[in-house]
């Protein structure tokens, strides 16, 4: 057993240990001193990040028979860790003194651990564990905010999640039994000769579970509700981190499904449906959080494009990772702007932001233009590589659909942007300093990823 190297999973141990320590420390800390738990969680994340960065140059290998340590895993680790740090940063004001502050940190760390497990595994059974590890903290995070909207969103998330979880487990059972094993290596050889109907049923089940986690059509309805109802840090987390894990997992899974199924076409259709539904629904929104929620649905549509061509285009996985990096930092920047103006709910409430707080407004401009895909921002780089990969993988129609969707998305992002530049009504410029700092830092990162594209593409191609 040469593949049992616990040290190779050091980043994951940091996340797990951080979660446990944050939870325990919370039990002993008075309400006003919960910042210690924040510090512990942050330290654990930093440790995980350093450990993941140190493992960057290693040759790809599999440990414990189910954990693939390759470029997608490394990038996922870094993105998840950085994203969770940014979530904690933008949530300082929101969470400080919250009765469940330390529990929140524990849940964030467990959720990010789940996302990494989802992305790294090549065994359906471990995938199911990753699914549960990601989704259960989600329900709690959504429900942590004590508003009526949060309760409804938590219930909706839970019901859909339970359904998706059952589908995933059923799919695992079916695929595992017809292929004679649950490891992807076994699936790849076993499914090619298995009855197509059984493979199709099993694949749909597993894909369904991951589509819930990614927030893609048809299992997306929880996303806008949760984005609107949950607290801002929780909303930022659940629209970013689980998607990263789920999409990398989808790419790995789609790669081993046999050619007897029209998987690329199915994923392509799902991608087109997801981006279109997300965009059309976002057009009608007036609540900034809900609008961002729908926008993340549409972004998942673009992210599914490289998944659809993972078997036919060599650039698919690097493109997916590039887009994930860009999307994560951009989406979190947009949520950080929301967190910096906790009183602002509707788009109208952002009126006059440019006059009151030019830097925050600049961060908002950068984030929204990046979500549109304007160069030289992070998502532009993602869109460029994703469009190229999809066309290269003979799905040019999908690229045309995505381009048209991008034009549609401009309409609602601009509607928000225009508010920020209108003359202010009242001067309520009380911004939360930590969240504001996170927004500005995020905006700088969005531009840095876009302009300094060379190192990013070098990272994702390994």
């Amino acid at each position, binding site marked *: 057993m040469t593949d049992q190297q616990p040290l190779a999973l050091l980043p994951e141990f940091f996340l797990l240990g951080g979660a446990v320590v944050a939870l325990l420390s919370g039990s002993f800390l008075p309400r006003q001193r919960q910042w210690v738990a924040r510090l512990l969680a942050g330290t654990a994340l930093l440790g995980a990040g350093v450990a993941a960065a140190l493992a960057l140059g290693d040759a790809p290998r599999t440990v414990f028979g189910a954990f693939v340590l390759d470029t997608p895993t490394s990038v996922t680790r870094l993105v998840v860790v950085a994203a969770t740090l940014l979530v904690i940063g933008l949530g300082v004001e929101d969470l400080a003194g919250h009765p469940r502050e330390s529990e929140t940190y524990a849940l964030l760390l467990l959720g990010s651990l789940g996302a990494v497990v989802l992305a790294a595994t090549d065994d359906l059974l471990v995938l199911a564990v990753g699914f549960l590890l990601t989704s259960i903290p989600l329900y709690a995070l959504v429900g942590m905010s004590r508003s009526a909207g949060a309760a409804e969103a938590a219930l909706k998330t839970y019901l859909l999640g339970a359904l998706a979880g059952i589908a995933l487990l059923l799919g695992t059972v079916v695929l595992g039994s017809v292929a004679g094993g649950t490891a992807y290596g076994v699936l790849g050889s076993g499914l090619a000769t298995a009855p197509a109907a059984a493979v199709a049923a099993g694949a749909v089940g597993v894909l369904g579970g991951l589509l819930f986690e990614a927030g893609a059509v048809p299992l997306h309805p929880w996303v806008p509700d949760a984005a609107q109802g949950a607290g801002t840090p929780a909303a930022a987390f659940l629209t970013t981190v689980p998607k990263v894990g789920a999409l990398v997992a989808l790419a790995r899974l789609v790669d081993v499904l046999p050619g007897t199924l029209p998987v690329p076409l199915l994923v392509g259709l799902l991608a087109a449906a997801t981006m279109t539904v997300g965009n059309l629904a976002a057009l009608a929104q007036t609540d900034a959080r809900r609008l961002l929620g729908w926008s993340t649905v549409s972004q998942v549509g673009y992210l599914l494009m490289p998944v659809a061509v993972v078997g036919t285009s060599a650039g698919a996985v690097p493109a997916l990772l590039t887009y994930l990096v860009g999307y994560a930092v951009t989406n979190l920047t947009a949520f950080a702007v929301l967190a910096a103006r906790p009183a602002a709910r509707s788009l109208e409430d952002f009126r006059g932001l440019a006059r009151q707080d030019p830097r925050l407004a600049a961060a908002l401009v950068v984030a929204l233009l990046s979500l549109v895909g304007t160069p030289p921002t992070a998502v532009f780089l993602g869109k460029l590589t994703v469009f190229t990969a999809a*066309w290269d993988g003979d799905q040019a129609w999908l690229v045309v659909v995505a*381009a*048209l969707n991008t034009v549609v998305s401009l309409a609602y992002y601009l509607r928000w942007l225009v508010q920020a*530049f209108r003359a202010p009504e009242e001067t309520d410029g009380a911004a939360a300093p930590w969240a504001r700092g996170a927004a500005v830092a995020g905006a700088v990162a969005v531009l840095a990823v876009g302009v300094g*594209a060379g190192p990013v593409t070098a990272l994702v191609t390994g």
Partner: protein
Amino acid sequence: MLSSIVFLPLVAAALLAVLRVPDRAARATWMAVTAADLALVVALVLGYETPVDGGLAFEERARWIPSVGSSWHVGVDGISLPLVALTAVVFCACAVYGLRETRRPRQLAALFLALQTTCLGLFVAQDLIVFFVFFDLSIVGMYAAIAGWGHGRAAGRSALQFFLYTFLGSLALLLGFIGLYLGADPHTFDIPELVAAAPLADSPVAGGFVLAALLVGLAVKTPTVPFHTWLPPAHTDASAIGSAVLAAVLLKMGTYGFVRIAMPVLPGAWQAAAWVVLGVGIASVLYGALVALAQTDLKRMIAYTSINHMGYVVVAVGAAGLAGGDAAAREVAVTGAVTQMVSHGLVTGALFLLAGVLHDRTGSYAMGGFGGLAGRAPGWSGLFAVAAFASLGIPGFSGFVAEFQVFAGSIGAAAWAAIALPGIVLTAALFLRALQQLVTGPPGELTPRFSDVRAPEWLPVTGLLLLSLAVGVLPGPLLDLITPAGAAVVDLVSR
């Protein structure tokens, strides 16, 4: 050298955006930086020697995104250098005119300096991604200029229409670029490498689709009929300098893209589509002129004449793709097209600045409200008369040189390009009518509120018109610059 010319305005813009300097200092910085950039461009023009191998001058190349075959690759030749010079001149003129702007001058200066970087960057770009970055950013910048400093009740709406429309065009362009990238072996976004490789030459269907995407993207920006509907409202509601930059520089990005990318990279597909391009050009010429004739709003009228004038460029590049035509005639057509881009930029920039003076004094562009301005404001009337005659193509100004070559070359390549000739007569008619209505006759109701041009207004207009006169009287230096590059384009498109 080129990189510093491109990024000097951006650095100044960033400083102006961050440092809260007083308004006076912001205006002075704006003017000083555009003047310095113009001086650098003049040095560039003086130091330019036509490369013997048909390549690029002042070439610079740095690693950017090696994994997708994209690099920071810039350089100029006889087609891009005149447009770089035009950009520097027009932005400098706008900075002078902008001295009178009282609404948020610091932000305005920052915005226009940033916009200058995007325009300069686009004309020197030798990489499709670099080109696209600046193409898209110019749209964002212009949107902010119209929405933030436009006038008229519907400025926000016009700006949104402009953004959505041209953004759609830019995405079509991006699709075309991706198609070229995938069609080239090895994959690259580098323009000279793509020109050498001539991708998709052996797959006419794919080449046709990619060219269609490029044509739509560039035609929206130019704009040609039927993609022109965003232009009149955008011009009407933009400020004077916004309109001047939009018409004088941004529209050129579309036609420049034809000459720089579409023609040399996809010669086979361009030859096949040349008749369509020529037809669209003729339609733009005639339609733009006819609709301009029907306008009562001065700025809308000038906007429609832009469609007409850019139509000549499209006619010329269409004719240049007709492989059966006389090669010498087609070279004349391309040279005329580039000259027309410069000429239109100079003259229409001046016209829009003059129209801005009307609005500044009276808040109106309605030609019916004016009359007898010659007595009231002889300075403005004189400048407007000169600009109008320059625009309708009177000999002695750049427009004549350009349009003469466009028609000589196009008709030489395909006789039926002559269908576009009535456009010249129509333009003459509409400018003479506008002159008559505004300058001569009894004073209109708005005339008493009009006062003559002041120094920051007549200076830039005079400068632009003098340059147009210089090109008209002594076209030699400019044509010497353009002709070899035009011949190279015709060689490439005839492959």
